């Protein structure tokens, strides 16, 4: 009885002092972090007038730089898709020796400094390297040229594609593929008529993410090619040469493009969840 009472009192105590202070505190603390991300972007955007923006958007130099950036990143993405999707499938389905090493290697570009990544690429595709000299003699400039920019973008952004494809394939129930095999489908047919159609949304999401990451790449690109100037490099160059005010409009334009792509990606990622909920 004494025990029950002691608990009873404690419970009453809890009931009295009950306030959702924990959730409140977490909410306040979390909001600070969200603010930390939003405030600089909002601040930069708001301190840039519409006329500054339209002036920047009208500049020939800015426009060709944006075109170059979008195209190089797109080219890198499409080229890597042909390689990254099969790799994602293998990583999702096969348990081979060294699989976890490959998984680690795929993530390397995310964690190494991009200036060092650019330097590493330069070692391989620079003018004095084997690949660089061969391609230069055959007329394809790499360093200081769009092709080199695409390579740099591909290097730093391909992990996003491979990981998205792998996650997409992993979400396809293996039984669907197994049953298809017993019905007479070869591994290739299983891939093209079962795995790929069911994972394409994730793959497309990965492609868009890779594209966005490629567009925003700065460190590796500036080492491979200061000119022709991609937009992130132009933001840096204008800041360095003419100061904050001059660079701001271009930066806002660029962030706007990236956020726009990102919104498309989010909308794309949302739909399948809803339909899956319907299935379950």
């Amino acid at each position: 009885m004494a025990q029950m009472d002691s608990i009873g009192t404690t419970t009453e105590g809890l009931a009295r002092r009950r306030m959702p202070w924990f959730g409140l505190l977490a909410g306040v603390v979390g909001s600070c972090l969200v603010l930390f991300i939003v405030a600089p972007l909002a601040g930069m955007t708001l301190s840039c007038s519409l006329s500054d923006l339209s002036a920047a958007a009208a500049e020939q130099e800015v426009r060709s730089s944006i075109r170059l950036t979008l195209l190089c990143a797109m080219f890198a993405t499409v080229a890597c898709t042909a390689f990254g999707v099969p790799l994602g499938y293998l990583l999702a389905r096969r348990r081979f020796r060294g699989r976890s090493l490959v998984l680690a290697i795929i993530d390397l570009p995310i964690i190494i400094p991009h200036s060092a990544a650019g330097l590493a690429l330069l070692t391989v595709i620079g003018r004095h390297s084997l690949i660089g000299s061969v391609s230069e003699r055959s007329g394809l400039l790499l360093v200081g040229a769009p092709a080199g920019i695409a390579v740099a973008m591909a290097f730093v952004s391909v992990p996003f594609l491979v990981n998205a494809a792998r996650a997409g394939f992993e979400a396809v129930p293996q039984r669907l593929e197994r049953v298809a095999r017993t019905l007479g489908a070869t591994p290739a047919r299983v891939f093209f008529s079962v795995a790929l159609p069911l994972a394409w949304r994730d793959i497309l999401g990965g492609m868009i993410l890779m594209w966005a990451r490629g567009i925003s790449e700065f460190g590796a690109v500036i080492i491979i090619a200061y000119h022709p100037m991609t937009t992130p490099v132009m933001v840096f160059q204008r800041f360095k040469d003419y100061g904050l005010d001059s660079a701001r409009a271009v930066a806002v334009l660029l962030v706007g493009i990236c956020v726009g792509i990102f919104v498309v990606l989010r909308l794309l990622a949302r739909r399948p969840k809803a339909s899956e909920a319907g299935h379950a």
Partner: protein
Amino acid sequence: MLELRGIAKRYGRFALEALDLKVMSNEYCVLLGPSGAGKTVILEMLAGLIRPDAGQVLWDGRDITSAAPETRRFAMVYQDYALFPHMSVRANIAFGLRSRGVTRTEAAGRAEAVARNLGIAELLARRPATMSGGEQQRVALARAMVTEPKLLLLDEPLAAVDIAGRRRLRDQLKQLQQRTRTTFLHVTHDIDEAMFLADRAAVILDGRLRQVASPEELFRRPSDRDVARFLGMRNILDVVCSEPGFCRARGVTIHVAGSDVATRHVWIRPEEIILSGQPFDSSARNQFHGHVAQYSRAGDLLAVEVDCGDLELTALVTYASFECLAIQKGRQVYATFKSSATHCF
């Protein structure tokens, strides 16, 4: 004919030791074992989806242990249907034919024919996600059967179907097998399902094949105590039989028809144990006095456990007799059974 020779596999916690089994052509064979015993792994080994650690799979005497799944013509039907969610029912059923190079029109026609046979013709245009469990499983069945497999592998095909649909599907399975004379290999943990469907049933316990027999034979003569327990048989006694017809179980002598010195276990059919408030004279040779230890519902009947000192007997009685005898815990009763109500093994 499918033949397994010494198939062994370790797979996570699942361990299968040297499985030898023959599945005759055109028979409905059921693999019976507790759930979670990895029966799916056995089917996936047969289908060529998983490689056994040791042993051989033979089809009509030819070693197919390392043949690719798509070359075997063993079709699989999974418990969770595994229908292709991005295809219509028609495309699902036609998938196997299309994979084997049948033209689109012919495949569609044959898919429709099979769908009509299984009563799912009206579903052909729909997507699997919108269908009930029973419907999905019939589509899975049609998808497998349309490829005219040499062997149909069924992995607990009724387990995920709701009770209403389960019975209909069970009947359809049996009819389908009898009509097409395809060899069916069906794994399940459900004893009633095995009893209804199987021409022969193979019991696998603890990774070992214990007994292969017709369902009737299985119940009449389980090979050992584990099998009997798994089959849910109550009143299995360990006995010593020194004299034909008489067995001793824990100091009690029981009259058992047909027992001999080889008898190790006796099963007393619980539904043939008669309970009464008073002893009575009858042709029944065994009568024990005891008290009710426990009772509980068992399907449509009540299982009454009677503690007769050295012997614990469970009798199955109807609700009517239960009420009539005013059974409650501790009630003194007599348990009576004929020597022919016993089986020895």
